[in-house]
């Protein structure tokens, strides 16, 4: 079948957003230059143009931020809960009011399609603050048997580049609701919306030091999570780094929650609504270019419908639009960074080397500049292949088949990860039986990649521990 015989006209998002020439750190309620007096480039991954220069925080900046958070802890945690809530409500409202600006900035900085930053990242970020604002004065009902709710203290929060603003909201909102103070470190390739959030915090008159934001790369993060003044660490990122942090925290007895990698199975039974399942597969792996820790990157299809599923998947992929992330019709944006693109390309090559068939039925032409990867799926994948075992964090799907539910479940669980899973069948009893037996923190049945502030998110096994969101997410931010 030919690709779309006609072309869409461009439909660019036109809200202008000013990007500062360079950013500062946000410490003790003030924007300050980094101690190092160093800045590093942040680029727009869809054009490779330098967008801004990001302040490189060092150990001295981390010291100052932790000290500011420590100083703010007592007054903040003793503020009547109802008053604390008002700040969080304000933040939620300001995010909503500045939503379009935040969405455009997020897309420019990270490469994700504007329809996703506009419809998913930013609204969910606002919802997280709004939802948690209401918890401030209800914490004594949140954790059964916990007694009087007290904050843990000063929290170090390190977040990834795939959902920059949303991850900041996931981390900050519960921490603040429980009366903690925070030092947040955004990912080095996506710091701009976090600094815009700092502006919002200042606009909302959040007391100085309650939230501090220190930008930088891995060294800055290490200085933060290993800082002696930290009571709790929350990290979202790779399992490898997560284990390093776990060791450091183990040595000091620091409280820790980790939201790490995944290689989530998406299981399609023959009795599924196949057309809906196709949409779910697409949503599962190509949402946000596959830069999603819970991406449904291992597709298990019941053998009898494998030809139908791959045929329909291929057809559907031909209509996916890859290109300018600021175009409202774009489905697949730019890969976040050059480094990540190289990683993904290495995995695709490894899959081909191991004998998988690589299918990229999408558009032939990609923009001349920027970091791009066609949506990809691989067939002929064996469980031992590297593309079936390791997290790729890109738009690459490994397709495998199975014969019985037992086999599907066994293979789905045969991974050190346990973040998410998908199940597709129209049979109700089968849905819940399979969902029960899958080792995953989130199981999407006849849907995929749904998120909500009221719904706890987090993994089994080596995908980390602790939950974010919902009632169960609050325990991590309350003293035991």
């Amino acid at each position, binding site marked *: 079948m030919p690709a779309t015989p006609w072309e869409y006209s461009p439909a660019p998002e036109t809200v202008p957003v000013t990007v500062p020439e360079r950013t500062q750190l946000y410490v003790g309620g003030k924007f300050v230059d980094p101690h190092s007096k160093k800045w590093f480039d942040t680029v727009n991954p869809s054009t490779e143009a330098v967008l801004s220069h990001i302040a490189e925080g060092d150990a001295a900046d981390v010291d100052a931020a932790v000290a500011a958070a420590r100083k703010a802890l007592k007054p903040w945690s003793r503020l009547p809960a109802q008053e604390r809530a008002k700040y969080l409500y304000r933040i939620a409202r300001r995010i909503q009011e500045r939503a379009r600006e935040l969405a455009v900035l997020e897309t420019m900085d990270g490469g994700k399609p504007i329809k996703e930053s506009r419809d998913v990242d930013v609204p969910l970020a606002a919802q997280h603050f709004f939802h948690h604002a209401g918890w401030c004065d209800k914490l004594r009902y949140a954790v*059964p048997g916990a007694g009087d709710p007290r904050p843990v203290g000063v929290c170090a929060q390190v977040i990834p580049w795939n959902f920059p603003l949303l991850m900041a909201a996931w981390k900050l909102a519960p921490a603040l609701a429980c009366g903690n103070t925070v030092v947040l470190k955004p990912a080095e390739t996506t710091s701009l919306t976090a600094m815009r959030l700092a502006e919002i915090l200042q606009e909302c008159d959040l007391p100085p030091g309650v939230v501090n934001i220190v930008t930088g790369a891995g060294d800055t993060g290490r200085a933060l999570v290993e800082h002696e003044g930290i009571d709790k660490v929350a990290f979202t990122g790779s399992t490898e780094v997560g*284990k390093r942090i776990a060791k450091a925290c183990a040595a000091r007895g620091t409280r820790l929650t980790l939201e790490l990698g995944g290689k989530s199975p998406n299981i399609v039974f023959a009795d599924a609504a196949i057309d809906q399942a196709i949409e779910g597969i697409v949503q599962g792996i190509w949402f946000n270019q596959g830069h999603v820790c819970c991406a449904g990157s291992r597709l298990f299809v019941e053998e009898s419908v494998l030809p139908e599923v791959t045929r329909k998947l291929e057809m559907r992929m031909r209509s996916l639009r890859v290109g300018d992330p600021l175009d409202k019709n774009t489905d697949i944006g730019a890969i976040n960074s050059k480094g990540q693109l190289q990683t993904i390309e290495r995995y695709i090559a490894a899959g081909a080397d191991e004998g998988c068939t690589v299918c990229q039925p999408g558009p032939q032409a990609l923009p001349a500049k920027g970091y791009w990867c066609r949506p990809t799926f691989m067939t002929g994948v064996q469980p031992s292949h590297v593309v079936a075992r390791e997290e790729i964090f890109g738009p690459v799907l490994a397709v495998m088949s199975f014969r019985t539910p037992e086999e599907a479940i066994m293979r789905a669980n045969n991974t050190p990860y346990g973040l998410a899973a998908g199940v597709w069948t129209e049979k109700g009893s089968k849905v819940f039986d399979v969902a029960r037996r899958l080792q995953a923190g989130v*199981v*999407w*049945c006849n*849907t995929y990649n*749904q998120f909500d502030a009221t719904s*706890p998110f987090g993994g089994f096994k080596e995908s*980390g521990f602790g939950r974010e969101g919902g009632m169960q997410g609050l325990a991590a931010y309350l003293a035991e």
Partner: protein
Amino acid sequence: MADIERIPVLKTWKLFVKGAFPRSESGRTLALHGHGGELVAHISHASRKDLRDAVEAARGAFPAWSGATAYLRGQIVYRLAEMLEGRRADLADGIRTTTGASRKKAEAEVGRAIDRTVCWAGWCDKFQMVLGSRNPVAGPYHNFSMPEPSGVCVVLQADAGETPLLGFLSLVLPPLCAGNAVVAVADARHPLGALLVAETAPTADVPAGALNVLTGQAAELAGWIAGHRDVDSVHAQAKGEVAATLRAGAAENLKRVAVLAPGEDFGDDDRWTNPRRLASFVETKTIWHPSGA
């Protein structure tokens, strides 16, 4: 008959693995001394292989134990309490032998330990309701969260303190009642209560492998426990080097670890009947399904 003093029948206490009572595969034993320093008995000195065997047994038992109805798990744990009730005198003697506690104090501990067991039997089919939730997501989805057991839990009682039986059961019951399969290592200085629990378990219909009991040296076992990649969680009462080894090694495969200090007051009912005690041994699973869409 002349007054010939009867010679007691002495036994070496064995391990409890997969419903059977093997000696350590290593052939090693440890001497057990009474409170006055006298030799009381010998106990098995579990090796790394014994630990691995026990973990394997637990892993094998996990699907059936976690998959059993919560009602059945509750009845089995309650049955354990019933069977322990019949052995109160033995249990009190076991405690007194090594701790030197008064009869009254030992009997009080036994009573509390059995009551604690009854309490946790009741949690088997209730913690899911207390810790779970139906989440009001902003969309046409049915969404609910429920706690599920994380898998194989190793209990390490390195430093039992003054109430070894109550401590042992308090460490074992939360993960066990949550549906985990448990490998429990009793304090080698005060193991008799734990070993009597092991001898009682098969008669309470605890499925083979769902609860395994080892005796050995905590310092030696800690590293092997922490480094074992098929162990999902650790519940320990330990200090110093042993505690540090458990925490650091556990980071390797992100085991869930709860380590208590030796001074833990297991008599604190508020704390030790609290469902929060099993929070480290369950994972919250959240299930989404479209509704009406």
